[in-house]
């Protein structure tokens, strides 16, 4: 992707939409996950109370994050964990590299970590001659295909089993044309088992870090984080600083919400609490900022840091479901990605807050009650004010504002619009008109509402009867 010019969201979405059957399948598959989430949530009588509680805990974290971080580091050090601080992605990658260098490691196994995607760690390490293998099955598949994940929880959700079969045939030598998921998963299991057994270093993400105890929790269904970490001499855990929660007992709230919101499971298969390294082994934590402290200072957008990366907002989003994760050109796609990305790079990600209908479904399913659609709307205003929107949109909006502000101009514009649409439709029904891209133009009314009202209001009727 790096060599090609990045398409903006709507361009990429129209490429994705060329295969209608596939888009429908993508849409339905994600909606199915959303429905599983609903069924699971509905079984918990206290669901709304849980969301409210989680939101309050995260609010408390945001306002005390400095002290919690200091406390977390102190406790982690007491536990024998090495703590590193990285101001940005570059520093994160350098720290990871230096740890690997110290141990003379040339190959590393990695479980799912969106942060390392955000920092482009794999590319960085490849340049340094270090091979990284992603061990989450979905990530393994997209890595073999040299693609980024398209979803934070379901990295290969854009692919069909035929695609996976083709990829595995090419890279793992599986039977051509065998599309059986059981068979394909078994092949990956064998290949990755060998990886787990031969790597001295393992990197994992962090789902929650507990200030009170200095431990951190990693959740997986496959057991890949544990297979990596427990067989390696060195375990590196990368975390954005917003992953902190105050106390161990708060995990009760978040672990009840996370998997139910993500896939509808009551909990992930493994919820592993890492507190101390094994005897003679090492655990390193890299605490990463990379723009988070800036986002913390944006009053309208700081709540995005409450995110626990469940992906519920993506599964429910009508735009995500029909445009695919890759069209967001960001490590985190979908509604939450669209409010996180502009903070990282406003001009590069100016299109993303517009990739939404503002229907609010994301906000309604968010387990920590982030006001996602409000933030999307607010980002649009910031982006326009700071000049990051395309000229065509700015001119159109300015013209519209001028027309709407002046009744005479509005009248004339309406009349001429109706005339054009009726008599020279090609002037609007053409490729220049972005609105017409996915829509039919409406039937042309004979008269404007204003004209109709003039004839039909009580006053004018009374006048006629005089």
């Amino acid at each position, binding site marked *: 992707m790096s060599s090609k010019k990045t398409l903006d969201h709507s361009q990429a979405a129209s490429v994705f939409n060329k295969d209608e059957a596939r888009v429908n399948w993508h849409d339905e598959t994600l909606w199915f996950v959303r429905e599983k989430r609903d069924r699971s949530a509905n079984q918990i009588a206290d669901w709304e109370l849980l969301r409210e509680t989680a939101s309050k805990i995260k609010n408390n974290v945001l306002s005390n994050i400095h002290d919690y971080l200091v406390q977390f580091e102190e406790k982690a050090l007491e536990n024998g964990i090495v703590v590193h601080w990285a101001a940005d992605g570059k520093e994160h990658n350098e720290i990871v590299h230096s740890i690997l260098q110290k141990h003379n490691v040339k190959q590393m196994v990695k479980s799912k970590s969106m942060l390392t995607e955000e920092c482009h760690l794999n590319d960085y390490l490849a340049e340094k001659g270090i091979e990284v293998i992603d061990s989450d099955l979905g990530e393994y598949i997209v890595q073999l295909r040299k693609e980024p994940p398209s979803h934070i929880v379901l990295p290969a959700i854009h692919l069909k089993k035929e695609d996976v079969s083709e990829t595995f045939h090419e890279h793992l030598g599986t039977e051509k044309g065998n599309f059986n998921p059981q068979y394909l*998963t*078994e092949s990956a299991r064998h290949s990755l088992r060998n990886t787990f057994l031969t790597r001295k270093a393992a990197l994992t993400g962090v789902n929650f870090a507990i200030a009170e105890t200095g431990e951190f929790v990693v959740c997986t269904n*496959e057991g890949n984080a544990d297979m990596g970490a427990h067989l390696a001499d060195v375990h590196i855990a990368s975390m954005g600083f917003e992953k902190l929660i105050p106390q*161990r007992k708060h995990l*009760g709230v978040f672990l009840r919400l996370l998997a139910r919101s993500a896939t509808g499971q009551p909990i992930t298969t493994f*919820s592993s609490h890492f507190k101390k390294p094994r005897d003679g082994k090492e655990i390193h934590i890299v605490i990463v900022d990379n723009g988070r402290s800036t986002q913390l200072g944006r009053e309208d957008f700081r709540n995005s840091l409450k995110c626990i990366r469940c992906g519920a907002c993506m599964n429910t989003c009508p735009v995500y479901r029909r445009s695919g994760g890759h069209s967001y050109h960001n490590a985190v796609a979908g509604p939450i990605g669209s409010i996180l990305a502009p903070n990282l790079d406003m001009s590069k990600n100016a299109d993303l807050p517009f990739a939404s209908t503002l229907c609010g479904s994301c906000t309604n399913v968010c387990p920590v009650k982030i006001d996602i659609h409000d933030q999307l709307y607010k980002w649009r205003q910031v982006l326009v004010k700071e000049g990051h929107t395309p000229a065509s949109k700015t001119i159109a909006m300015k013209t519209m504002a001028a027309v709407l502000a002046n009744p005479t101009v509005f009248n004339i514009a309406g009349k001429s619009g109706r005339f054009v649409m009726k008599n020279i439709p090609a002037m609007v029904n053409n490729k220049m008109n972005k609105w017409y891209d996915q829509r039919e133009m409406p039937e042309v009314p004979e008269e404007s509402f204003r004209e109709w009202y003039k004839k039909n209001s009580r006053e004018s009727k009374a006048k006629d009867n005089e």
Partner: protein
Amino acid sequence: MSSKAAILNKIKQNQPGFASDLPDLGVLGSEQFDVLETYKTVLKNIGGDFVEVSNYDEIITYIKNNYELQKRIITTVPELSEIARLDWKNDDPHSLQDVELTIIKAHFGVAENSGLWVTDDILGQRAAPFIAQYLAIIVQKNNIIRTMHQAYERIGNQEYGFGTFIAGPSKTADIEQSLVLGAHGARGLIVFLLD
């Protein structure tokens, strides 16, 4: 200035000035349901299975009838020495790669999600429940509790180097959302519910 100092300074500057209090967790986890029945149903739903037993002999009989005894079986439970090895706790964890079945005990189970809480003092080795082809966990029926809130009340300030909740066998649905058991960890989980 070090990155740590710079990050912490900026956070201090940018974090909200108002403090929001931590919510009361006491209001959560009061749902009432049949704990044991819920545990069993949830475990089945997520691909695990259970057997109710009244003593270790019944566990031994079950293992003999359902697993290949000539393959490598390891445990941390001395009562099972007839069918499983106990002498692997100080071995290199990589040497556990040929283990067919690991049998361990759990401190307690959680009914709402069928998770079983284990810590390294009862795991023998951290890798043991993950690297085996199959996993068996023994838990006492009266140690099944309702929700995760009771779970963390029970864990309290328990000291451990590593602890994990295990809920069902290792699984993935990363290929077209088709559920496959046995992604990297155990292909099957049997829970012995002990009287």
